[in-house]
C-alpha cells in the first residue's frame, strides 16, 4: 500500500521513539494501588468492596449497571484501606478504591478461562474482562463490539499506528505478543463474522510490519482475510477517522460511528489483552506504559499494575533526573498535563512523560493568518474562522464551520508560528456549542 496520505493535512512531529527497543520490564508490586471508578467513557462504576475487605488479583472491586461501562478489577492482592474520592486529570472528582498490597499477588477464584460459544457469550466475556479502548479513549470494548448494525460491518481495523511521538507501548506489544494479537484478531473476526481484518502500522516500524505480515499471511484465508497495511508516518494516522479513511477510503460522517461505514477499529494492545483474557481468564489488571521524557532518568517500557501511583512508576525508572516541569499522561500531542504525580495509572494510559525546561513553549503572539493550521487540519477545518466565531459567541457559525468534528489532535497548534492555543479554543468552542444546543 502506498505511503501517501489519502487524508489531507496532518503534521510530521519528531518521532522520538527512544524506548522502541527497550523490552517490557515488569515493575515490582507497589505498596498501594488506587483504582479509579472512572477508567472508561460512560458513568463511573460503584465500588463493590468496602474498607477492610480482603481482595485478590482479578476480583471485581467496582461495577456499574450502565450499558456504557466496564468493571474494575483488583490489580494486587491485599486489603481495601479506603474508598475515597480522587480528582482525575480532567478535574472530575470520582470514587476510588485504595488497596494496600500484601505482596503475595494471590489470584481470585473468579479468574478462570470463560466459556465462550456464542456471540452473546463473547460479548459477556469481553465485558467481564474490563477491557476498554487502550489507545487512549477508554471506550468500553464490549460496546464497540456490539454495534447496532453488526451485519453491515465488513472490516475490522487493528490500530497499531502509534503516531504520537515517544510512545512505544503498542509497538512492544506488536514485537513481544504478535501471536496474541493475531489470535485475538481471529476470535473477533469469527464472532462478528467479519470478512477482513487490516492491521495498520506506521511505516516507521519496519520490524513490526515484517513480523505481523508474516503471521497475517500464514493465518489469512478466503473469507477471513488478515493483512497488514503500512501507513505513512504522518501524525495523526492513528486517529480513528483518519485511520478508516486511510485504510478503506471510507469517511465517517460527523456524529456517526465507524460501524456506520462498516468498520470497527480496535487498538492492537486491546485485541491482544482480549485474546489473553479468553485464554487465561485474567482480566485487565496491568498495562504497559512507556515512561520517557527529558526529566526521566531511565526511560523504558514498564508493565504496571493498574492503579499504581505515577510516582512509583517514575521511581522504578530511576526517578526524575531533573525537575519535572511538565508531567504528561499520554503523548505530547494529545496527552493531559498533570499537576500531581500521585495520581494512579489508568487502563487507557499508554505513556507517562516527564519534561524539564524543554516543555516550556513560547508565549502566544498575534495570529498572522498564515493558514498553516488550515493546511494541517486532517478534518478540513478552518481554525481562524472558528476562533473568530468563538470570540463573537456565534454558535451557529461554529457548527457550520464544523467545530464538533474537531478531534483535538493538536496538528493546528503544533504548526502555528504564533503559538496560539488553538486546541484550547476548539475545546471551549465545542463546549459553547454543546451548552447552546442543550438550551434549545
Amino acid at each position, binding site marked *: 500500500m502506498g505511503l501517501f496520505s489519502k487524508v489531507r493535512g496532518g503534521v510530521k512531529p519528531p518521532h522520538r521513539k527512544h524506548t522502541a527497543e527497550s523490552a517490557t520490564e515488569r515493575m515490582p508490586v507497589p505498596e498501594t494501588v488506587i483504582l479509579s471508578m472512572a477508567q472508561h467513557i460512560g458513568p463511573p462504576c460503584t465500588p463493590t468492596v468496602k474498607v477492610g475487605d480482603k481482595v485478590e488479583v482479578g476480583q471485581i472491586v467496582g461495577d456499574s449497571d450502565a450499558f456504557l461501562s466496564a468493571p474494575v478489577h483488583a490489580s494486587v492482592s491485599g486489603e481495601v484501606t479506603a474508598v475515597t474520592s480522587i480528582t482525575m486529570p480532567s478535574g472530575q472528582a470520582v470514587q476510588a478504591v485504595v488497596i494496600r498490597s500484601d505482596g503475595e499477588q494471590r489470584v481470585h477464584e473468579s479468574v478462570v478461562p470463560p466459556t465462550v460459544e456464542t456471540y452473546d457469550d463473547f460479548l459477556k466475556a469481553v465485558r467481564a474482562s474490563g477491557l476498554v479502548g487502550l489507545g487512549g479513549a477508554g471506550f468500553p470494548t464490549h460496546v464497540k463490539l456490539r454495534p447496532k448494525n453488526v451485519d453491515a460491518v465488513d472490516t475490522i481495523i487493528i490500530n497499531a499506528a502509534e503516531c504520537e511521538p515517544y510512545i512505544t507501548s503498542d509497538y512492544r506489544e506488536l514485537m513481544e505478543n504478535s501471536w496474541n494479537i493475531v489470535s485475538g484478531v481471529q476470535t473477533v473476526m469469527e464472532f462478528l463474522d467479519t470478512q477482513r481484518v487490516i492491521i495498520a502500522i506506521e511505516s516507521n516500524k519496519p520490524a513490526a510490519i515484517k513480523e505481523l505480515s508474516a503471521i497475517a499471511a500464514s493465518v489469512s484465508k478466503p473469507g477471513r482475510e488478515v493483512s497488514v497495511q503500512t501507513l505513512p508516518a504522518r501524525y495523526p494516522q492513528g486517529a480513528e477517522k483518519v485511520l478508516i479513511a486511510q485504510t478503506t477510503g471510507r469517511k465517517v460522517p460527523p456524529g456517526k460511528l465507524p460501524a456506520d461505514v462498516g468498520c470497527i477499529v480496535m487498538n492492537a494492545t486491546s485485541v491482544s489483552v482480549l485474546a489473553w483474557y479468553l485464554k487465561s481468564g485474567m482480566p485487565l489488571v496491568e498495562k504497559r506504559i512507556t515512561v520517557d521524557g527529558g526529566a526521566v532518568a531511565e526511560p523504558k517500557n514498564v508493565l504496571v499494575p493498574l492503579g499504581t501511583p505515577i510516582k512509583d512508576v517514575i521511581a522504578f525508572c530511576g526517578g526524575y533526573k531533573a525537575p519535572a516541569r511538565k508531567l504528561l499522561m499520554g503523548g505530547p500531542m494529545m496527552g493531559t498535563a498533570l499537576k500531581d504525580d500521585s495520581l494512579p495509572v489508568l487502563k487507557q494510559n499508554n505513556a507517562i512523560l516527564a519534561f524539564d525546561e524543554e516543555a516550556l513553549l513560547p508565549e502566544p503572539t498575534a495570529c498572522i493568518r498564515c493558514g498553516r493550521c488550515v493546511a494541517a487540519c486532517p478534518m478540513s477545518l478552518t481554525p481562524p474562522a472558528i476562533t473568530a466565531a468563538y470570540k463573537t459567541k456565534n454558535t451557529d457559525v461554529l457548527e457550520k464551520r464544523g467545530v464538533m468534528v474537531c478531534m483535538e489532535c493538536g496538528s493546528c497548534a503544533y504548526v*502555528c508560528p504564533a503559538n496560539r492555543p488553538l486546541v484550547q479554543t476548539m475545546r471551549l468552542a465545542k463546549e459553547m456549542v454543546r451548552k447552546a444546543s442543550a438550551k434549545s
Partner: protein
Amino acid sequence: MQNSRIVRSSPHLHSGDSTRMIMLDVIIALLPASVASIWLFGWQSAALIVTCIAACLASEYLSRLVLRREQTVGDLSAVVTGLLLALNLPATLPLWQAALGSAVAIVVVKQMFGGLGHNFVNPALVGRIVLMVSFPAAMNQYVVPFWMSSVDGVATATPLVQLESFDLQTLFFGTYGGAIGETCAAALLLGGVYLVVRRVIQPTIPVVFIGTVFVLSWLISGDAYEATRQILSGGLMLGAIFMATDYVTCPVTTLGKVIYALGCGGLTVLIRQGGSLPEGVSFAIVVMNILVPLIERVTYATPFGKKGGERHA
C-alpha cells in the same frame, strides 16, 4: 517544584516555527531584489531602503508605546513592510517622503487596526498609494539606472508607457526605469523560489496572478511576446510574489487564494489596458485585499465527512 508544574492544554509539542522566523525568511527572499536595486540605481536605493526600514521600526515602536501595547518590533514585520515599501519607490524620491509613506503604512494601516494580523489591506501598498496620490510628480519620476543614462541619454521614463522600447532581456534583468525593487524580475523570481522552497508561501497566488495577466494580455494583444513583456514589467513580479501573498491580507483557503489571485490579475490588466494609470498592480491587490473576508466566506472547505462535496481547503 509541585507548584511550578505547568498544566496547560495539549499539544505539548511545537514545530518551533515563529512569526519572527517567517519574517526573516521574507527578508532573505527580498535580498536579491534589494541588492539588484542598489546595483541598478546606486546609493539612492540604499538610502531609501534604510530610511523606510528605520521609519517603519520607529513608527511601530512609537505607536505601540503611545497605545500602551506590548512591544512587537522584534517580530520583524515592520522591517518587511519598510523593505517592501522602499522597493516600490522611485530612486529619486525625497527621503522625507519615503519616511512619511512608511509612517502611514505602519501607524494608520497597521497599528490603528490593532497591529500585525489585524490590518485588512497591505500596509506597504497603501503607503505607496498614499505617496502616489500625495506626490504624483515625484512618484512618477522613474530614472533609468544611473550608469546607463550616459549611454543612451534617457533621463526619465514611465516604463509601461514606453514598453515597446525594451526587449525581454532588459525586462528580465531590470535595466530600465521603474521603482527600485520592481524592475529586476530575475531577482524577484529567485526570492519567490526561496519562499516556496522554505514553505513560507504556496506558489498558488503568484502563479495564478502572473498567469492571469499573461493569458489576458495575450488575448487582448494577440501576441505572446507582448504578453511576456507585460508580466516582466512594472510592479507585477514584486506584487504577485511579495505583496499579494501577504498572509494577513490574502485568503487562508486554497480555493480562496485562486479566486483572489484571478481577481488581482484581472484588475491589473483592466487598469493597465483601460485605466488612465500606467500601472495597476497596487490598486488591484488592495481592492482584492478588501474582498478577502467575502472570498473566504464562500470558499471554506467542507469539514471531514460532511455532505456537500469534498472540497479541501
